[in-house]
């Protein structure tokens, strides 16, 4: 008789769960999940920084269009953005684009909009007197931003950035919908093949997601306390 929970299906497919059919085939599983998350995180960090700074520009002609982009993206479900990119990107570029690339583009765009809001709040959270002091010594506005406001703001933003990254890791599971063989997709494949242990399989991948996210949250906690400079005496 079968035991209540049988994890042999996990053990038998362990490498597949972690790296897909690599090195004989494509990278997949946990490794692909992390690859998607890290790549789109790096892109969206840069994108969010740019969008965020443009959204606090003194010039309306810059600020308003930027805010429009940010709010549009934030107002659309991520799944829609993934579909858009999946269909749009190849026709825009005029050649086929690997699914994983379209997913990275979607995740990066989507997360950029959220990162931009974090950057905006972070910049606006620095007291006006800091900018004024910098301007008063003759620094140009962009220099005041780069040397005075951003270094302080980024430290305050760090926890929110990590939150966003953790969301991103979980959001990569939506890549499943366009057939990218990240962790969730791999789990579904294994489940479809064996058909007998869905509980074990999905329990296992939930645990994997949790462990990855928890690890990053803990690292960020430690980083935060290390970076915290003595704010008051």
């Amino acid at each position: 008789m079968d035991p209540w929970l049988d994890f042999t299906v996990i053990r038998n497919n362990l490498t597949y769960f972690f790296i897909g059919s690599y090195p004989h085939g494509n990278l997949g599983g946990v490794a692909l999940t992390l690859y998607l998350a890290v790549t789109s995180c790096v892109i969206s960090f840069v994108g969010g920084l740019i969008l965020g700074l443009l959204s606090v520009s003194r010039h309306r002609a810059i600020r308003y269009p930027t805010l429009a982009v940010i709010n549009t993206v934030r107002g659309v479900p991520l799944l829609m953005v993934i579909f858009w990119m999946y269909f749009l990107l190849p026709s825009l570029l005029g050649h086929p684009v690997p699914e994983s690339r379209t997913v990275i583009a979607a995740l990066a765009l989507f997360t950029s909009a959220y990162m931009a809001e974090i950057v905006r709040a972070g910049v606006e959270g620095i007291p006006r007197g800091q900018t004024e002091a910098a301007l008063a010594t003759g620094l140009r506005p962009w220099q005041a931003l780069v040397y005075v406001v951003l270094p302080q703001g980024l430290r305050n933003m760090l926890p929110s950035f990590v939150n966003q990254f953790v969301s991103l890791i979980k959001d990569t599971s939506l890549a499943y919908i366009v057939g990218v063989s990240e962790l969730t997709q791999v789990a579904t494949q294994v489940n479809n093949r064996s058909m007998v242990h869905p509980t074990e399989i999905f329990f296992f991948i939930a645990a994997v997601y949790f462990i990855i996210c928890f690890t990053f949250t803990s690292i960020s906690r430690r980083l935060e306390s290390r970076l915290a400079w003595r704010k008051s005496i």
Partner: protein
Amino acid sequence: MIRFEGVHKWFGNLHVLNTINLHVRQGEVVVICGPSGSGKSTLIRTINRLEPIDKGKLIVDGMHVSDQKTDINRLRTEIGFVFQQFNLYPHLTVLRNITLAPIKVRKVGKKEAQEQAMALLERVGLSEKRDAYPSQLSGGEQQRVAIARSLAMKPRIMLFDEPTSALDPEMIGEVLAVMKDLAESGMTMCVVTHEMGFAREVADRIVFMDHGVILEEREPAAFFTSPQHARAQQFLKQILSPMH
């Protein structure tokens, strides 16, 4: 050096500066006083265009402050500004607070900037604090660093907006001493302050403001012994009363 000619400014409906005419000559120390909300901060903040003016002419060091063609960043390098809340950069050490602008704006070499900064720290009596962060300093020390930071740009004018108002009484003296030393070195200064002892001793002229208008502009001796305006008399009585 600084010339206001019929300057006006509004915050919405609030007429915060009303027909300001004021001339500060090179090497002069002008103290600006008046009740809270009278427009003192706004007045000195217009001098380096932290607040733009709406009407009139404001000429500083030969440049029209409100003219769009004026290189405002260049003008600001000539004008030091000391804030009530110090506004030191909390993420930088004392030394880097002082060297930031000389290095980035004046393009001074790092080593030279540091030497100049050390000389300034010496002057304000804080050489041993070069590697401290602002939060590790007392209020009086922070304000002296802020003064050193302004002086690092070798300004021709220094503006002070209530530099001692945020300080504990026992720290006021050390900051005023630095300012007095600066005045004696011939610096052109505009100082918003309620430290009447300082005003009496150091100022060449006292400007009294109320409701955005300059009501009196006189030498300290005359101002303190026989203020003309009823509002000035009342103000002096309040501020000089032993209960204050």
